[in-house]
């Protein structure tokens, strides 16, 4: 808990984005998480990504479940829409919202507990549906908010703070998402914002469901020796394989990437994601190969990070279901709800 406020300082030479806003305009309430929590870094990265993309705060929607990670929607974009839902139910609320108004930018914030235990079913179906949203899974291997019980992402052999060893196999959100047909799958680390900010920007611009599994250490309950989700462990074993940069349509793709290494993937909005392979034999456009590589590296204890898989060709939920792109709140009431006679007529058509 904190009892101080971060002052708002109008620095004379603060950077401004295309809307004339500063990064501080994308901040929110003072975080009440433990000092040093990885989630706070992720929050700062999300704020920075929205700032850099010059997204108007009131055109963004933040949705979350329950957990320390889920609390963080209060700590950025204070001028945006938001819904802190019940435990594990963020995906269904996001799905409904995205169906009702396709014109907004959706970001879901969840934890490993919220997504992989109680909310596993919802999580899986949002992926299958390819809801147009970015899903941030802040993964610390524990239920932080309820004081550090192992979550479903805890590795076999990882030790709790009291020394208890986890024996159940972990659920890996990345390989799970790949197997469910996800179209944008990334893994990152809260300690590497140079990698994370561009990934969030790419994920927000991707058409369809984007997942970023962010290793985000819990300083209070899972940052000790023997934990495989600590800062020290992650810094030691994490390995960036593919770097992704979002390049808007208006900007030319910089040629500074060495030839052969940079792979541009074109997006629906005319911009592109430029992939820079740090690992020569990793191809993020081949689902099967990606799956195999990740599984193999995971088995060795290596934490592969970056944009691990991308597929821009699949239709998102709105397209698959032929939903209107016009926000429902802009329809006149009789058009939106044509009345019981119209319903009866419709039902008759199915008899």
């Amino acid at each position, binding site marked *: 808990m904190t009892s101080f406020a971060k*002052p708002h300082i109008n620095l004379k030479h603060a950077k401004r984005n295309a809307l004339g806003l500063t990064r501080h305009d994308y901040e929110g309430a003072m975080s009440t998480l433990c000092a040093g929590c990885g989630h706070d870094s992720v929050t700062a990265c999300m704020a920075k990504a929205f700032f850099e993309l010059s997204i108007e705060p009131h055109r963004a929607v933040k949705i979350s479940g329950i957990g320390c990670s889920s609390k963080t929607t209060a700590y950025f974009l204070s001028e945006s829409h938001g819904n802190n839902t019940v435990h594990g139910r963020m995906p269904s609320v996001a799905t409904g919202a995205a169906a009702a108004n396709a014109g907004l930018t959706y970001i879901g914030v969840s934890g490993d507990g919220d997504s992989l235990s109680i909310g596993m079913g919802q999580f899986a179906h949002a992926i299958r549906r390819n809801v147009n949203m970015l899903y941030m899974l802040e993964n610390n291997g524990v239920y932080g908010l309820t004081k550090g019980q192992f979550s479903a992402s805890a590795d076999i052999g990882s030790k709790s703070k009291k020394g208890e060893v986890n024996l159940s196999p972990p659920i890996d959100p990345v390989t799970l998402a790949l197997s469910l047909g996800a179209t944008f799958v990334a893994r990152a680390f809260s300690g590497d914002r140079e990698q994370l900010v561009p990934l969030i920007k790419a994920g927000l611009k991707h058409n369809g469901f984007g997942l970023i599994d962010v290793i985000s250490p819990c300083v209070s309950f899972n940052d000790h020796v023997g934990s495989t989700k600590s800062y020290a462990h992650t810094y030691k074993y994490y390995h960036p394989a593919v770097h992704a940069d979002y390049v808007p349509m208006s900007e030319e793709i910089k040629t500074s990437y060495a030839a052969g290494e940079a792979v541009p993937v074109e997006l629906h909005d005319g911009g592109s994601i430029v992939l820079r392979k740090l690992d020569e034999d990793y191809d993020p456009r081949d689902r099967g190969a990606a799956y195999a590589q990740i599984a193999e590296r995971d088995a060795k204890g290596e934490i592969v990070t970056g944009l691990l898989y991308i597929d821009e060709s699949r239709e998102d939920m709105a397209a698959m279901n032929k939903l209107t792109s016009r926000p429902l709140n802009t329809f006149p009431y009789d058009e939106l709800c044509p009345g019981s006679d119209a319903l009866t007529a419709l039902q008759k058509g199915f008899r």
Partner: protein
Amino acid sequence: MNAPDGWKHKEGVPPTNTADPDYFHKVVDCQWACPAHTPVPAYIRLIAQGRFSDAYILNRESNVFPGILGRVCDRPCEPACRRDRVEDEPVAICRLKRVAADHKDDITDRLPKKPDKMNGKRIALIGAGPASFTVANDLAPLGYECTIFERFDVPGGLMRTNIPAFRLPEKVLAEELGYILDMGVDLRLNTPVSSMKALLAEGYDAIFVGTGAPKGKELNLPGRKEGGANIHIGIDWLESVAFEHTKSIGKKVLIIGVGNTAMDCCRTSLRLGARDVKVMARKPRSFFKASPWELEDAEAENVEIIVNHSPKSFVVEKGTLVGMVFDKMEYQLDEKGAIIGQSIIGEEMIPCDDVILAIGQENAFEWIERDAGLEFGKWDMPVVDEMTFQSTVPNVFFGGDAAFGPKNIIWAVEHGHQAAISIHQFCKERMVTGRLSNEVRLSSTKMGMFEWRYSNSFDGAERRVMPHVELAKRFKDLDVEVELGFTPEQTATEVQRCLNCDVQTVFDAPLCTECDACIDICPVDCLTITPNADEPTLRQRLETPAVNTEQALFVSEALPLTERVMIKDENICLHCGLCAERCPTAAWDMQESEIIIHHVEDMVTGAAK
């Protein structure tokens, strides 16, 4: 299979040596800029606690005259103040100094005293200005027998004869000079020294020359002689006003020059009956020498400042001055504002009854015989060492305006401190260059969760405006002090504007877990963790790039987990302590830095060579 290989740069900037006392001293911009290195934030905190006497004593140790300087100091500290990097106005440092002086209790028993036993050394000090008084202040309590020779019948130098009483009341001056005289200093008034050789023959162990720069500059233009009765040299005129020899002036007055002397001349004229006072400047406003606040105060009294007028001649009719002719100038400036060309675009006669020349001061050493042994150099100034203030005669020292030309009071004080050290070294037959090195003492200000020993939260209040006596009442008497001093409410607000730059962010690299919490909380984005590189590159890596290269960039040792480095731009840090508050491992701590700058008393016990 490790953290990105690119993070482990072996080359790059070596870790910052914060043990160097200058490192943290420079962070305290005001203290660094003060010639006498007054510990500004420390005394402001004492004022905030209502400890006015303690604040006064702390001030006095470095600047000797807090009451005087709290009113009329040139304030080099204020333009340096960090506060104006986040908003427009610096902390009213000088005004707060006056608060301490005005509200202190009787502090006489806390002042150094004449010792019971003198050390047998006799020092002659020529001129009773701030420079000589500082030397006496430092040496008398150590047992030196100090004798001050002054040509006038009052002490104080230009502070008494030139700085008008409406800015510096005589009472304040007398009080602070009195503290020093009470240390057993022998003040001989009406005693001009007219021969250096004669004084040298009197066998003093050391002589200090603090005679100032007493000669005003002339302006020899046509009509100067004929109109002489109404053409005055600024500093002589102010002196004659101070001694009440001059009690009036004409209705229309022109002041030539736009420095601080000009400001005192125009405002004094108004108090002697002038109705229309114009300050004539040769160049545009950006070239004015007067401090902005002196210009403001003069303009508030309806003094007109006329730019781009270069004096050409005095107009004298029937033996009386009736006006002055000026060339009207036009200047071509480059984009940085420097003059690259000038032309005369016309001529203008401006009528007046009196002219006061305020175009500068010079030194005058007629009383030093050129065969007295002192070497004279450029501009016919005696050769004086910049560190020891020793002349080419080993037991003769200079200080204040007499040393290197006109400066200001706080410089005279600092010269006095340094000369006192040299005189002591000389009398002890040690190297006069011997000095004790500065030191820095750090102590944590952490008291508990969210509790620090200083008021760390940022206060967005704007600078308080000094209340002034209303115009109508101001001109009744020559000695109505214009500035009233801060009210208690103003003081309470102004002290909170100080950012406590002496409470340093001290980093302990081995403790850092690279969680980035400090980076995220910093309200001015002046921290980051990054692979080491050359300094210009590092400066660009901050969210708000560190563009002010005059200010240090802190670079830590390699961090334990990734071998990256923590960097910090000292320029815009608010010393708010949020980084330290947020750090889970206390790798950042807020520590008060006391910069120890030695005066001569420390040399007595200290181990100087």
